[in-house]
């Protein structure tokens, strides 16, 4: 450090300048460390409010999917429903309530489409032989039956109980996760929610 002659005012100003600089760095360091800690805490808090097994819940963004229908004709993906309401249903042939709700859904499918809400039913990793036999038994469906062959979408959504229906709004967010059989009233409510 060079020592030059300074008058008292200059020295005072320099000292104050130095003090300011020091305060700035002190604040910076404390803020950064506390911020890092806060981020970690938030991460854990976020994890705690979310399901610990990674199940998708209301308020989450709906994970994307790209699945082929039962007849291998068309691939349906999340993207094609963007900007529209979507009811994403998971089902299995071994699930009694699924079997019961399917005709009801089929009857309302046209109404839903008229209101701009789509409905797709994802089968949870069963074989096409089984699923087509089952669909034949209940007289077929107008809405697409998607085959989640390697259960990856089921895993992404964290499915435990069947049937379960995710109401996804136009922005692609899950509005509600409904576990259990759907009846007429519930279906109409779902359509309304998906359209919001």
């Amino acid at each position, binding site marked *: 450090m060079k020592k030059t002659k300074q008058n008292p005012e200059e020295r005072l100003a320099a000292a104050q300048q130095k003090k300011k600089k020091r305060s700035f760095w002190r604040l910076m360091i404390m803020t950064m460390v506390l911020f890092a*800690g806060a981020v970690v805490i938030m991460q854990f808090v976020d994890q705690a409010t979310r399901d610990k097994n990674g199940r998708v819940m209301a308020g989450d963004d709906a994970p994307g999917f790209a699945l082929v229908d039962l007849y291998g004709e068309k691939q349906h993906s999340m993207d094609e429903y963007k900007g529209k309401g979507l009811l994403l249903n998971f089902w299995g042939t071994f699930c009694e309530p699924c079997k019961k709700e399917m005709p009801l859904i089929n009857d309302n499918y046209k109404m839903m489409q008229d209101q701009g809400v789509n409905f797709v039913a994802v089968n949870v990793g069963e074989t096409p032989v089984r699923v087509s*036999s089952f669909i034949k038994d209940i007289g077929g469906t107008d809405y697409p039956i998607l085959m989640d062959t390697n259960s990856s979408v089921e895993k992404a959504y964290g499915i435990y109980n069947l049937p379960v229906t995710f109401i996804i709004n136009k922005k692609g967010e899950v509005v509600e996760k409904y576990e259990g059989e759907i009846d007429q009233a519930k279906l109409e409510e779902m359509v309304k929610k998906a359209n919001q």
Partner: protein
Amino acid sequence: MQEQEDFKQLDMRYEEAELRSKRKNPSWIDRAWTFFSSVKVGLWLIGLIIIASGIGTIFPQEMYIPQATPPEEFYQKEYGTAGDIYYTLGFHNLFESWWYIGLITLLLLSIIIVSIDRFFPLYRALKKQPVIQSDRFMNGQRFGAEATGDVKKIDAIAPLLEKKGYKIRRQDGALLAEKQRFGRWGPYINHIGLVLFFGGAMLRVVPGMHEDELLWLREGETLPIEATDNKYYLKNEAFNIEFYDPEKVDAKFKKSLEAAGGNVPKNYDTKMTLYKKVGETSDFKPKLEEIKSGETAVNRPFEFDDFQVFQEQYAADPEFKTMSFSIVNQKTGKVVDTIKVDLREPKETYKLKNGYDVELKDFLPDFVVKDGQPTTNSGRPVNPAFVFNIKSPEHPKGERSLIGIKLNVGGDENQYKMAFAGTELSNISGVRIKKDLTLPFLFAGGIIFMAGLLIGMYWPHRRLWLREKNGRIQIAGFTNKNALGLQKEANLALTEVGLPELEDRQKLREEGEAK
């Protein structure tokens, strides 16, 4: 004697430098800073972390309890009221609680501030040390001596000390010999390592730094790896498990194996192939390109890119994979043909020789009869049953039968029957796919931590001051570790030039007090 009893050692930890936190007119920033710059606060934090961590081990943490029971029931059921209190206070997730992470963050802050506040003044003080020190300084050192003599003695000792690795500085006849100043930085290096370690651990929250996925793979199955955004697929080629054999190979373990009861696994591993998705086929299946194949076993992960695949667990029971059937003409007893049904991908029609066909009308993986109707209980092939329709020249429309394990409905009355002809099983391997880009930071942090610890502990900073004043030579010695070492080293040189040995003034004073 008088002098020795008055002896008051100077606090040389920071070379008497003024620590930065002590300032006039503190603002709130300064107050907070000063608070954390106190070692006492840091030690309190360590104490609190010790207690909190201990509490966290009284009962198992939530991550270690069986998944079947919800935690709110588990602690109450398992540990009674104490368990209930433990759960209510949130101690079941103690190490992820806001206050525990908070304590660690504050300790980190304390370490950083304490180090900054002490390192810079110390660094400056050591950088511009004077060769000639005051009487107060010379007499305030723990080690010292005085004798009559002239500068020649100081001149003579210089090369001796130099040989011992001391750096010598002279000024007006006075001498300062110093070695291993670096040892003073040990604690700060150690703290840097610690901060790097914790910082690295915190980096995990940055997206993309850390991926963790458990993948259950049946033998022969190929599944996308979600942790790689489904860019990579993993195929389980074969799962192998081997148990200790108390009778033959591992007879020496017989007693303890019997005590353990049941099988003790010796080794299990999964042979696997990694594929990269390069596109999609016309029927929407992924086009895969083989990248590499290998094996994962416990302690020997399979690696690709930044990922590691760990062998973690396996399903206790293998699963049915295929079932084979012979089509038998019951009139002649002749076998027409044999088919093998892949239970994961059964075909709708199996074309046979000589114009025979078998149609698979339905496949019930977990067969059960409900309300008089054959159906399935789940999607898993636990108890497979099949509805076959055998088309033959005699029966162009086909003959139907329901076949399963110990189950044959309609098969006996038909001309052609499906006879069970064997099955294949497959094991299910649970592998964990992991990516952790924070590991290099932790590793570097750990190495720096240890280096700092060793430098601080085994690299004593030693200094000797010699000064001639009015025909007397004053000697003072300093070391921050291992007093005996300094005395030995210095005394050898001092006596060689005819100077007295260093006295431990602190010891003399204590002995004086004791008398």
